[in-house]
C-alpha cells in the first residue's frame, strides 16, 4: 500500500514541478491537463487508501530522517489513518475538480501554466499537512499551504490589492504560527518527541497546566489558518485570488486545517475540556459574527468567504466540545458544497467579466441555468435543509451544543443557521433572480464551457448525498477518534431538528420574499447596524489605525531616531570626540621653541609639586 501512499503524496509535487518548468511560458493547455490527471491519480490513490484503511487499518511509513539534533528526532513520516484518509480524499477530490475547472476558468490568463504549478504545489502541501505523522511534518504542510496561499492570492500580482491581501494572509498566519511553534516546543520539552503517537501516549503523565498550555498554543495556530477571530480579516481579503483558489484553499481545504489540527489532537483536547469549551465559544461567536457580516455584503465572493468563516465556527464548536468526528464530518460536507458554491460564483464572475457586486447582477438564471441550479443546490446544502449534506452535519453540531448543556452556544448556532439560510438565498436571489440589473451595466453573460459544468457535477452530487453516509462515516472515523455519545432524548432531538429546519426554511423564505420585491429599502443602508456590518465591525480599520500605522511609525522612529540618532550617533561621537581632542592637543605643538621649553619646565615643576604633596600609599 505504500506505493499508493507515495503516489497520493507525490503526484501533486510531480505535477507542480513539471508544470513549473513551463511557468514563464505562455499558456499551454497540456500543463493544465497533465496537472489535473496527476491530481486525479492522487485522488484515486487516496480512495484506494480509504478502502485499504477501512479493511486493514492505518498505514504508517517512515520515509527518511529529517532533523536530528540532540534528543530531537523528526523524520519524514506519514500516517494514513481514519482521519487523514478522510482529509486526503476530501482534498484530492475537491482539488481534482478545481484543477479541471481551472482549465476553463484560467483559459485566457497568460500565466495559465504558473497557476497550475502553484495549485498543485498547494495540493502537495496540503497532503503533507494531513498525512504527516508528527507535528513538525504538519507544520511543513502548514507553512507550505501558507506559501501557496500567498502565491495564489497574489497570483495577479500586478494588482496592488491582490499582493496586499496575499501579504496580509501570510503575515496573519505567521502570527498564529508562532503560537503553534510555541506549542510544539512545549510538547517537545515535555515529551521529548513530536511524533503524534508518542505525544498522545505520554500526555496523561503530564501536568494538566502544561497540557492546557499546549492546547492553547496549538489552537492559536489553528486560529490563524482557520481565520478565527481576531485573525479573521485575511480571509475576506484573500478573495482577491482567482476564484478556483478561493474554492480550493479558502473554502474547502486550507482553512479547515485548523479544525483538522484540533481533531488530530483530539486526545489532547479531550483532557482539557475547559480549553475545549473556550474554543467552542469562540467558534460559536465567529459563526454568528461572520454570518452577520455576510448579511449585508454585496461582494459575491466575500459573502461566501464570510459564510466559510461562519461554518468554520461551527466546526470549532463541534471540535471544542469533543465531537471530533462530527467536526470532521462537517468539514467534509462543507468542503463539497462550499467549493461548489465558489466555483459557481466563478462562473458568474466569468460571465460578468469579473464583476463582483451582486447588486449589479440579478436575473442571471436566464443565461446560466446550470450554474444557477448548482449554486442553489449548494446554498440549500449550506442552509442545512434536509436531505442535503449540510443538514446532517450542521444539525449534529447543534445537537452537540445542546447535549453539552451549552444552551447559549446552541442558541448562537441556531440563530446562525437562520442567518446562513438568509444570506445564502439573498445571494442566490440577487444574482440569479429578480431584476436584470446587469443589462444596465452593459454585461453580456454567458454560461461556462460544458466541461466546466460537468466537472462541477460530482461536487453537486456530493453536496446532495454526502450526508447520507453519516453512520458509515461515524463508524469509520470513530475507530480512531473519540466516540461522542448524545444523551438527549429522541424527542427533544426531533424538536431540535425541527426547530433548526424551521429557522433555516424561514430564513430562506424571508430572503426569497424580500428580494423578489426588490430587497430592503435604501434607508436601511443608512442605519448604524448596516454600516457596522458592512464595514466588518470596523475591525480592518482598527487594525490599520492601531497596529499597522503605529508599527510603521514606530519602525521609522526606531530607525531614524534611535538607531541613527542615538546608537550610531554615540559611536560616531566617540570617534569624533577623540578626533577633536586631537585637534585640541595639536595646539600644544605650537612650533614655538619657547613654548616647547616651557612645556618641559612646567612638566618638571608640576612633578616637583606632586612630589611635595602627593604621597601614595604603597
Amino acid at each position, binding site marked *: 500500500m505504500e506505493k499508493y501512499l507515495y503516489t497520493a503524496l507525490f503526484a501533486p509535487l510531480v505535477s507542480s514541478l513539471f508544470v513549473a518548468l513551463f511557468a514563464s511560458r505562455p499558456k499551454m493547455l497540456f500543463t493544465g491537463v497533465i496537472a489535473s490527471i496527476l491530481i486525479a491519480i492522487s485522488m484515486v490513490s487516496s480512495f484506494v487508501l480509504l478502502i485499504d484503511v477501512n479493511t486493514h487499518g492505518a498505514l504508517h511509513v517512515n520515509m527518511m530522517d529529517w532533523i536530528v539534533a540532540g534528543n530531537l528526532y523528526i523524520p519524514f513520516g506519514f500516517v494514513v489513518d481514519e482521519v487523514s484518509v478522510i482529509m486526503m480524499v476530501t482534498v484530492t477530490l475537491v482539488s481534482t475538480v478545481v484543477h479541471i475547472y481551472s482549465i476553463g476558468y484560467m483559459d485566457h490568463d497568460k500565466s495559465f501554466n504558473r497557476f497550475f504549478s502553484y495549485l498543485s504545489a498547494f495540493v502537495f502541501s496540503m497532503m503533507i499537512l494531513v498525512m504527516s505523522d508528527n507535528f513538525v511534518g504538519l507544520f511543513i504542510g502548514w507553512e507550505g499551504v501558507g506559501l501557496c496561499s500567498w502565491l495564489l492570492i497574489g497570483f495577479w500580482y500586478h494588482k496592488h490589492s491582490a499582493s496586499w491581501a496575499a501579504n496580509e494572509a501570510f503575515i496573519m498566519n505567521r502570527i498564529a504560527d508562532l503560537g503553534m511553534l510555541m506549542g510544539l516546543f512545549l510538547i517537545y520539552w515535555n515529551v521529548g518527541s513530536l511524533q503524534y503517537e508518542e505525544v498522545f501516549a505520554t500526555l496523561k503523565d503530564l501536568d494538566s497546566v502544561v497540557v492546557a498550555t499546549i492546547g492553547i498554543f496549538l489552537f492559536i495556530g489553528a486560529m490563524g489558518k482557520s481565520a478565527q477571530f481576531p485573525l479573521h480579516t485575511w480571509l475576506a481579503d484573500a478573495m482577491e485570488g482567482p476564484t478556483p483558489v478561493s474554492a480550493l484553499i479558502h473554502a474547502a481545504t486550507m482553512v479547515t486545517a485548523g479544525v483538522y489540527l484540533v481533531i488530530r489532537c483530539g486526545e489532547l483536547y479531550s483532557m482539557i475540556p475547559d480549553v475545549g469549551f473556550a474554543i467552542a465559544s469562540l467558534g460559536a461567536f465567529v459563526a454568528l459574527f461572520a454570518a452577520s457580516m455576510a448579511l449585508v455584503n454585496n461582494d459575491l465572493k466575500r459573502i461566501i468567504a464570510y459564510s466559510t468563516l461562519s461554518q468554520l465556527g461551527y466546526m470549532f464548536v463541534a471540535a471544542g466540545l469533543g465531537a471530533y468526528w462530527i467536526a470532521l464530518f462537517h468539514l467534509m460536507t462543507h468542503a463539497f458544497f462550499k467549493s461548489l458554491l465558489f466555483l459557481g460564483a466563478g462562473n458568474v464572475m466569468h460571465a460578468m467579466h469579473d464583476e463582483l457586486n451582486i447588486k449589479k447582477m440579478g436575473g442571471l438564471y436566464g443565461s446560466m441555468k446550470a450554474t444557477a441550479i448548482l449554486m442553489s443546490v449548494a446554498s440549500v446544502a449550506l442552509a442545512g435543509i434536509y436531505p442535503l449534506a449540510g443538514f446532517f452535519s450542521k444539525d449534529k453540531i447543534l445537537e452537540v451544543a445542546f447535549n453539552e448543556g451549552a444552551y447559549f452556544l446552541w442558541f448562537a448556532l441556531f440563530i446562525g443557521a437562520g442567518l446562513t439560510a438568509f444570506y445564502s438565498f439573498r445571494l442566490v436571489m440577487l444574482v440569479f433572480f429578480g431584476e436584470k440589473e446587469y443589462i444596465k451595466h452593459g454585461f453580456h453573460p454567458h454560461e461556462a464551457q460544458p466541461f466546466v459544468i460537468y466537472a462541477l457535477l460530482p461536487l453537486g452530487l456530493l453536496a446532495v448525498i454526502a450526508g447520507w453516509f453519516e453512520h458509515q462515516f461515524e463508524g469509520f472515523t470513530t475507530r480512531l477518534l473519540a466516540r461522542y455519545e448524545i444523551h438527549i432524548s429522541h424527542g427533544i432531538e426531533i424538536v431540535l431538528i425541527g426547530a433548526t429546519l424551521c429557522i433555516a426554511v424561514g430564513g430562506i423564505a424571508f430572503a426569497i420574499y424580500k428580494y423578489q420585491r426588490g430587497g430592503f429599502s435604501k434607508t436601511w443602508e443608512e442605519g448604524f447596524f448596516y454600516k457596522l456590518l458592512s464595514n466588518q465591525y470596523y475591525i480592518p480599520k482598527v487594525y490599520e489605525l492601531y497596529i499597522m500605522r503605529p508599527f510603521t511609525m514606530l519602525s521609522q522612529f526606531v530607525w531614524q531616531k534611535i538607531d541613527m540618532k542615538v546608537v550610531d550617533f554615540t559611536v560616531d561621537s566617540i570617534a569624533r570626540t577623540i578626533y577633536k581632542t586631537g585637534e585640541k592637543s595639536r595646539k600644544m*605643538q605650537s*612650533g*614655538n621653541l619657547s613654548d616647547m621649553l616651557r612645556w618641559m619646565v612646567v612638566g618638571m615643576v608640576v612633578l616637583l609639586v606632586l612630589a611635595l604633596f602627593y604621597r601614595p600609599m604603597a
Partner: protein
Amino acid sequence: MITLTHYLILTGLLFAIGLVGVMRRTNLLMLFFSTEILLNAVNIGFVAVSKYYGDFTGQMFAFFIIAVAASEVAVGLGLLILWYKRNGSVDLNSLQMMKG
C-alpha cells in the same frame, strides 16, 4: 661660615635663574647663555658636594660638564650662525616653520 647648604642654595638659585631665562628669552644667544647657567649652576654644586664628601668624582663630573658645555656652545653657535646667515635674525620666534 659658608656650608654646603649655602652652595646648594646657590646652585638652586642659579639653576632657577637659568630656567627662567630658558623660558623667557627669545634671543637664541641669550637662550644658550641660560642653558650654560644651568650647567654651571650644577657645576658649583658638584664641586661643593665633592669637597664635602672628600671625593673627587664630583669634580670629575664638573670637568666633564665643562667640556660638554664647551662643545655644546661650539655646536650651538655653529647652528646659530647658520640660521643667522639664512634668516638674518636670532629671534627664536622666527623658528616657526614647523608646527601642528
